[in-house]
């Protein structure tokens, strides 16, 4: 899942702060994926083997336990969740348990029959992602010939009256296509569009130099988005999510570490956010060995950065510490070497220069002729990062 709807996640947050209920379960069903997005936020160490994936019964058990803890919004994500042959069974079980289910997909492998089966099985909402606003760009950054498929499945989902969101993931090589994206979305009849700038985790971090846009590119894209909103007021909800690196205050990690979100990986590891697998020196709890309730309340990982007690300066004495909870732990780790430091996106962080050093390099003007040597997210490329 690339990003949340900013507007709705806030109301989810308000109710979580009282007693930490994991209202959001992100179920990453598989790391297998037909798309090879170089901005994927999955870990670099994805395994090519699917043998370790949780079984249907194990996912049923995860869903049941999460529901008991109070989870109610469910995201089926990946990888590509359509690759799970038991997806209809999982959707049905989720519905029976009372979840509202969101399917986060590339639309590759989708067809009209499946959409109707999913709807019948209780799917609440489907999010289709595009890698470009035309066939060539979509292929160049997704590594697949899938543009027409995405277009026709978008039309099909709309005609079957299943709530739909389109997600355009943006970076320096497609940011100029914002108006084209929005025009296309409007012509397709989408009611909700997310323009989600890449955030720099996993594969995206590895490819950062060739993905991070310049400040000027971002400003142009935001103003194009605002122009579109003015010209087509009332026809489409558009969310524009800027990259963290250009903010001067950090964002809370997943609405606050271990306050709202619970993420289960294809192999059953349980994380407070989908990037947390990089946190060193901690044992990752797994649903195969431990009940979810125990993991949520008592595990070392979930308690490590909960609340504010773990903080160091300048967060510790900062009057804004409750607002952002020190920001993203993974960003702190990747850029400062210690996950307990302030997120260096914050201009008060003594490591803020690490962020400006990255953004400064991105200020070169966008040149469509510039070579873009990206490492694509596929199993062949993942091999070099395997540790075991």
């Amino acid at each position, binding site marked *: 899942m690339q990003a949340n709807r900013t507007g709705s*996640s806030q109301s989810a947050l308000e109710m979580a702060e009282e007693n930490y209920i994991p209202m959001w379960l992100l179920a990453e069903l598989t790391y297998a994926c037909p798309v090879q997005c170089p901005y994927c936020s999955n870990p670099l160490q994805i395994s090519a083997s699917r043998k370790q994936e949780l079984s249907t019964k194990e996912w049923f058990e995860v869903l049941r336990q999460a529901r008991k803890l*109070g989870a109610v919004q469910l*995201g089926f994500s990946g990888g590509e969740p359509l690759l799970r042959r038991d997806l209809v069974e999982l959707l049905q079980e989720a519905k029976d348990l009372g979840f509202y289910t969101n399917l986060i997909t590339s639309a590759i492998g989708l067809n009209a029959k499946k959409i109707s089966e999913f709807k019948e099985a209780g799917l609440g909402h489907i999010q289709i992602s595009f890698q470009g606003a035309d066939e060539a760009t979509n292929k160049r950054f997704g590594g697949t010939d899938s543009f027409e498929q995405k277009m026709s499945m978008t039309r099909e989902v709309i005609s079957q009256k299943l709530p739909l969101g389109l997600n355009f993931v943006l970076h320096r090589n497609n940011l100029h296509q914002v108006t084209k994206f929005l025009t296309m979305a409007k012509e397709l009849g989408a009611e*909700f569009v997310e323009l989600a700038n890449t955030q720099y985790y996993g594969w995206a971090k590895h490819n950062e130099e060739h993905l991070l846009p310049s400040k000027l590119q971002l400003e142009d894209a935001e103003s194009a988005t605002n122009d579109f909103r003015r010209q087509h007021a009332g026809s489409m909800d558009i969310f524009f999510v800027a990259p963290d690196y250009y903010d001067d205050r950090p964002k809370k990690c997943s609405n606050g570490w271990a306050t709202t979100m619970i993420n289960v990986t294809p192999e059953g590891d349980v994380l407070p956010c989908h990037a947390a697998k990089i946190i060193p020196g901690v044992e990752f709890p797994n649903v195969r060995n431990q009940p979810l309730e125990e993991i949520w309340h008592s595990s070392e990982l979930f308690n490590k950065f909960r609340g504010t007690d773990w903080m160091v300066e300048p967060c510790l004495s900062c009057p804004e510490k409750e607002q952002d909870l020190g920001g993203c732990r993974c960003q702190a780790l990747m850029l400062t070497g210690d996950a307990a430091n302030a997120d260096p996106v914050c201009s008060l962080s003594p490591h803020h220069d690490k962020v400006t050093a990255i953004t400064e390099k991105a200020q070169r003007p966008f040149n469509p002729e510039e070579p873009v040597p990206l490492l694509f997210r596929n199993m062949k490329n993942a091999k070099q990062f395997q540790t075991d």
Partner: protein
Amino acid sequence: MSMHKLNIDTEEFKVNPQYRLQFEEAQGCYVLLFPEGLIKLSDSAAAILERCQQGTTLETLVLSLKQAFPGVDGLEEDVRAFLEDAGQQDWILPVGT
């Protein structure tokens, strides 16, 4: 996002069929669920929306609420204010859309 904004005085309305109203034991309250989000509802908001599940008019709704909560001052004004807001947010839609 609905193009047709609801007029609660002249139109029948119902909970947006893409939204789901349900009671959550863990939170001890009703919530309204929609794509990638939820709203926690107060008891009075839930009492109103529960009565809009099948389609209703303002008059029928207020009558039903007055029967369930007799003697509440300013009930109609409160209901009206809530519905105006709920219509703006697309929680409720005109019947037939």
